[in-house]
């Protein structure tokens, strides 16, 4: 299925704009794209007229230019006619925002759209969806511009069965500095489904990670999705809702009782190294981490800290995620000890976590990071950076990033997220080192890489 025109259209028709009601979803979509996005937009309403000094066309086929994408926000009954018109006008695809299809019991109306579209090779997203946010080309999410929070352009494509959750995650992605290549609300997913979007984003050059919020798959659909995800060259993350445990229903075999819908879902994802995010916090951390690092790790974590308490909490978080924190040998400990400044040598501990104490200076963090990045016993380094230690400078984030650049071992930082510490955070992020705002968040980022390891 050719979806380039849906995500990166040059021209877009918004069908169903109102000449009298400025708050109509179609008007919201028309206005925001007209003012803020690259695609050229055309308004369509079957009565015709003029909106904000521009022609409103009666039909898509009346528009003098070739249209790549049609966004449809009309009453459900007339959508099949509009499809017909779009197909005749050789539009390349559609986003159907309109509700009133299978979700209200009108499955036949929805099926009529699917059969028209399939026959004509006319891909469409929806119906009953928020549509597509694909900067800088288009934004069909009918949320007023002043209230939507837009993450920066970045490498994560996010596909959601729920429009509300999509809008909410965009707020959170923006807050955490996770950039999006596209966000798609698939609504009733009548024609374009998760698998089609996985295939599209797998080859999309602007996407590095493909994340999904899934409520459920159709019959055997999970099997095809997993096969495609396992072959996807980019990390695939899935957050599943409806984690009802098995054994609630009366079933006659132990296997059916224990292998409930969710248990199977979760196990199959793990089997193929498709990353399951168990909640929205993991989803966010995983998207951030896997935007930076694409390869799986075994999950042997080296921890560098300036405070014993932080180190201990990080170890606890590692254990509860099933990550290991290997003890360093006496010889290794001696070697790091010799490489740090004399006053730290006497008071620090080097067993892993490496606790450099509050007396540490930039060079001590650099030496410890350099050492762990070369040790094969450790496959990821977590640095708990406390920006208020007197001996360190705000340049430390950028300096530590150079260690990663040199050695190539994944590095994850924890820095408290307040404006005052912005420079530390930027030092890492500009070098594509993920930065968490909590200790657990940093450990979750390492876990994201481990879950890519098939098990």
């Amino acid at each position, binding site marked *: 299925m050719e979806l380039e025109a849906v995500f990166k259209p040059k021209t877009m028709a918004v069908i169903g704009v109102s000449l009298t009601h400025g708050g109509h979803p179609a008007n919201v979509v028309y206005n925001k794209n007209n003012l803020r996005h690259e695609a050229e937009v055309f308004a369509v309403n079957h009565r015709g007229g003029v909106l904000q000094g521009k022609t409103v066309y009666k039909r898509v086929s009346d528009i003098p230019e070739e249209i790549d994408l049609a966004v449809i926000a009309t009453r459900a009954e007339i959508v099949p006619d509009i499809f017909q018109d779009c197909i005749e006008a050789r539009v390349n695809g559609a986003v159907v925002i309109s509700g009133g299809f299978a979700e209200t019991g009108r499955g036949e109306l929805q099926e009529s759209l699917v059969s028209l579209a399939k026959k004509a090779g006319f891909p469409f997203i929806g119906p009953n969806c928020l549509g597509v946010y694909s900067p800088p080309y288009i934004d069909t999410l009918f949320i007023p511009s002043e209230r939507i929070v837009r993450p920066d352009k970045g490498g994560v494509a996010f596909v959601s069965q729920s429009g509300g959750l999509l809008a909410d995650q965009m707020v959170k992605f923006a807050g955490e500095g996770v950039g999006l290549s596209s966000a798609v609300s698939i609504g009733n997913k009548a024609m374009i489904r998760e698998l089609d979007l996985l295939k599209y984003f797998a080859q999309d050059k602007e996407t590095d990670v493909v994340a999904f919020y899934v409520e459920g798959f159709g*019959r055997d659909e*999970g099997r095809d999705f997993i096969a495609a995800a396992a072959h996807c060259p980019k990390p695939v993350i899935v957050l599943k809702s409806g984690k009802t445990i098995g054994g609630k229903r009366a079933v006659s*075999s132990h296997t059916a009782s224990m*292998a409930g819908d969710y*248990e199977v*879902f979760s*196990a*199959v994802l793990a089997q193929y190294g498709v990353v399951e995010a168990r909640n929205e916090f993991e989803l966010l951390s995983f998207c951030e981490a896997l935007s930076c690092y694409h390869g799986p790790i075994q999950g042997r974590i080296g921890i560098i800290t300036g405070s014993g308490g932080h180190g201990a909490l990080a170890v606890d978080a590692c254990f509860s995620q099933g990550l290991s924190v290997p003890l360093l040998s006496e010889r290794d400990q001696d070697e790091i000890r010799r490489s740090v400044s004399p006053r730290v040598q006497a008071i620090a501990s080097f067993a892993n976590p490496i606790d450099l104490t509050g007396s540490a200076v930039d060079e001590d963090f650099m030496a410890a990071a350099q050492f762990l990045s070369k040790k094969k016993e450790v496959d990821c380094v977590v640095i708990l950076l406390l920006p208020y230690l007197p001996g360190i400078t705000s340049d430390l984030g950028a300096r530590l990033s150079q260690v990663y650049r040199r050695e190539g071992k994944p590095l994850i930082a924890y820095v408290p997220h307040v404006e005052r510490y912005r420079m530390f955070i930027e030092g890492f992020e500009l070098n594509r080192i993920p930065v968490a705002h909590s200790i657990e968040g940093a450990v979750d980022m390492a876990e994201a890489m481990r879950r890519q390891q098939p*098990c």
Partner: protein
Amino acid sequence: MLNKEIKEIISASKDRGWVLEPDAKRLFSIAGLDIPHFTRVNTAEDAIRFAKKIGYPVVCKVVSPLVIHKSERDGVAVGIMSDEEVTETFERFSGTDGFAGMLVEETLSGIELIVGAKIDYQFGPIIILGIGGVGVEIYRDIAMRMAPLAETDVELMVKCLRAHELLEGYRGSKPVNLKELGRLLARFSGLVMDLGEMIESIDLNPVICSSTKCVVADARIILKE
């Protein structure tokens, strides 16, 4: 491809919705899985004759189309040491609803595992491996994978179990034969792929595994309605 006898067993059990234990065992034996020496008897005398032939202790189980979970209906007796006990057990089982004979089989030793299959709505045929026995749903210690499996999948599945050390040789006991277990899983998964939509789920519970072999000591096949 399924052979003729397997198809016959399935179609003969269709109305009941599940396959009786002796038929299920026959089916798995055709598919290349190891099953215990056993026979189905209708008299205590036949039971004693077979028990003497294979040697005590033996296991006796009730056969009844009305009893799907035998142990819940007191329909399994293990460690039977004498002719008298066989007779006693036979008489007790005779009172079971729908009594249709008794199985007498050899006593096996090893770790009790469960190997199972389910046709999942979203993902199709799924295979499980876990700690088996009567307490299987209490421990809920299982690993699951999408079928078909390769023989090498067994190592990853065992590693996923909380009780994996039990299989790897715990406190001086011999480890279970992973090669045999892997062979059993791969054959079982191949059979499940062939049965496909005919079944809803299967329990092989217990599969008794030792350092030399893995034997399907009991089997339950739930057919699709």
